């Protein structure tokens, strides 16, 4: 069962098997080009595979948008240590719900992407780190892995070609921080999910301090199409330096929320109106968070933007993880900022003081503000505190909390001022669309 209907404007590459009967089974996968990219990759050199991924313009779908081929190229060719492929399926950025579907409907596409990554860097072992809340997906993935072993697509001698690769799932237990690559690796090793100082990066010292490729689910899922159809094909789907399609998760005050696969560079206003079915109840658009809660909010008049990494960066926000959160005219931006800060204060791991103290202090300030007990100087304090968190932490969680807060205050200062002097929230009880 699909959770939302597809849209005709979609370009379905990673999601093309969604909706097929038993799309999660290896039979369906094999009947629709499944594992053909891996077979093709068996005839390529490591450099050829990495060059193809570089040519595709694929950039990390977890949020940072780092070029995937380049990341794979950082793994040392010669290493006395074993190498690992780790899949980040700890999807927990508010607004993001795409990796869930990629695993639920097409787990073999992920396995094939991991196998190709293994060939590219010479790794023989992979792990899929899945957030604990996605228990049913751990079961889906385990069954798919069992199927792959049974068909000889995983094991000591894959397809009789002398290639060895083993894959297993690994359950998280509830921690946003573990979606950050170095914290994920600590957690994977059985410890608290605190981030590591970098460098060294995981490509050199990742899982068990061994060379490791660590990418988001969607990133690996793009790889079979790239190898099978060529990097140029994938690059051509998107915009320069932003290859391919991406799964956008539309949520909030729109008529047709859902996960849609659209070309990189798809215009945000078209996404809201033509894919998302427009605003609910005919309300006016107020703001959009373009890529998950860590990304600075865009005002309605800033939303005529191409949704690729570089264009959204030029609009002073981030494409992030593809979580597009749409807010209408009745949304209280102080409340939105507060809810997001409650999240970061809860999820800060406490390792770095600017983040631990900053998020907690901001949560208290924003709570006070929303309750009508803020002062004019608090508005300045919120901005100052946020700016003092930027760049002062091991991992980007501190930045992820500070950046959207700065944007909320700068872009919607009038709403903050409307909460001053003990006035009740002007939007209270109007939040839910009629």
């Amino acid at each position: 069962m699909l959770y939302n209907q597809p849209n005709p404007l979609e370009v379905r590459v990673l999601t093309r098997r969604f909706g097929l009967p038993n799309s999660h089974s290896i039979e369906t996968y094999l009947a629709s080009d499944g594992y053909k990219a891996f077979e093709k990759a068996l005839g390529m050199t490591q450099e050829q595979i990495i060059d193809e991924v570089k040519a595709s313009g694929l950039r990390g779908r977890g949020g940072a948008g780092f070029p995937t081929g380049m990341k794979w190229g950082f793994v040392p060719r010669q290493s006395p240590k074993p190498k690992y492929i780790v899949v980040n399926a700890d999807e927990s950025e508010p607004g993001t719900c795409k990796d869930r579907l990629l695993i639920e409907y097409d787990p073999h596409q992920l396995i094939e992407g991991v196998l190709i990554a293994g060939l590219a860097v010479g790794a023989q072992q992979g792990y899929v780190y899945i957030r604990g809340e996605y228990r049913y997906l751990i079961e889906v993935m385990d069954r798919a892995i069992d199927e792959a072993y049974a068909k000889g697509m995983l094991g000591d001698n894959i397809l009789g070609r002398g290639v060895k690769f083993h894959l297993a799932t690994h359950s998280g237990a509830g921690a946003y921080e573990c979606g950050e690559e170095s914290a994920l690796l600590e957690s994977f090793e059985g410890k608290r999910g605190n981030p590591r100082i970098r460098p060294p990066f995981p490509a050199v010292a990742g899982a068990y301090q061994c060379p490791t490729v660590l990418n988001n689910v969607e990133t690996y899922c793009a790889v079979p199409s790239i190898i099978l159809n060529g990097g140029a094909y994938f690059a051509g789907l998107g915009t320069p330096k932003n290859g391919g399609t991406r799964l956008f998760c539309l949520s909030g005050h729109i008529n047709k929320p859902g996960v849609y696969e659209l070309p990189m560079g798809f215009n945000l206003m078209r996404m809201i109106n033509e894919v998302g079915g427009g605003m609910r109840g005919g309300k006016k658009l107020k703001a959009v968070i373009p890529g998950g809660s860590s990304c600075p909010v865009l005002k309605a008049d800033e939303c005529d933007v191409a949704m690729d990494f570089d264009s959204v960066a030029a609009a002073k926000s981030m494409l992030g993880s593809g979580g597009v959160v749409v807010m209408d005219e009745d949304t209280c931006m102080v409340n939105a900022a507060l809810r997001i800060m409650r999240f970061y204060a809860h999820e800060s791991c406490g390792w770095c003081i600017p983040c631990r103290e900053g998020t907690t202090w901001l949560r208290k300030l924003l709570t006070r503000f929303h309750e009508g007990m803020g002062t004019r100087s608090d508005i300045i304090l919120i901005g100052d505190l946020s700016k003092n968190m930027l760049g002062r932490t091991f991992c980007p969680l501190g930045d992820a909390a500070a950046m959207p807060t700065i944007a909320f205050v700068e872009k919607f200062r009038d709403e903050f001022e409307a909460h001053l002097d003990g006035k009740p929230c002007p939007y209270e009880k109007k939040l839910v669309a009629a």
Partner: protein
Amino acid sequence: MTFSPETEARFAKFLAKYPADRKRSAVIPMLIYGQDELGAVTDELINEIAKRVGVTPLQVTEVVGFYSMLHRKPQGKYHVQVCTNISCLLVGGAELWEQACHKLGIGHKQVTADGRISLEEVECMGACSWAPAIQVNYDFYHDVTPAQLDKLIDGLAAGKKPEEIAEVPKVNP
């Protein structure tokens, strides 16, 4: 300490997944599946996991406090988790949360007197496009209406299992 045959088999599989000198990796998976069987992370479970993976009980204990899904006290038989993060907030998640608290007379991380239901206001669970969403134990419920939440809580309180409450079907396989 021994577990059910299913859990023992699962633990054996976990311990075989990781390199022989890296069994500590199994700590978190063992904690969460062990908790599922016992209802909480008990001292006994901590000691047993420490013994099996070859670390100190303290090295297991320090992990427990970090992860929001691990808990030292038992939850209700049905743990109702309501997301109020941004995407759910915009379409009624906070109202669902208030409704659940009001209806059951309990709050965040509290359990009803009969031990059947516990409540938790949770962070994003990855159902943003089908918000507002809740989870009961490990099952997802999308696009939840106030009427559905009423039916679900009434049913659970009356002794039904979630799958017996036809008006509120889980969405995951």
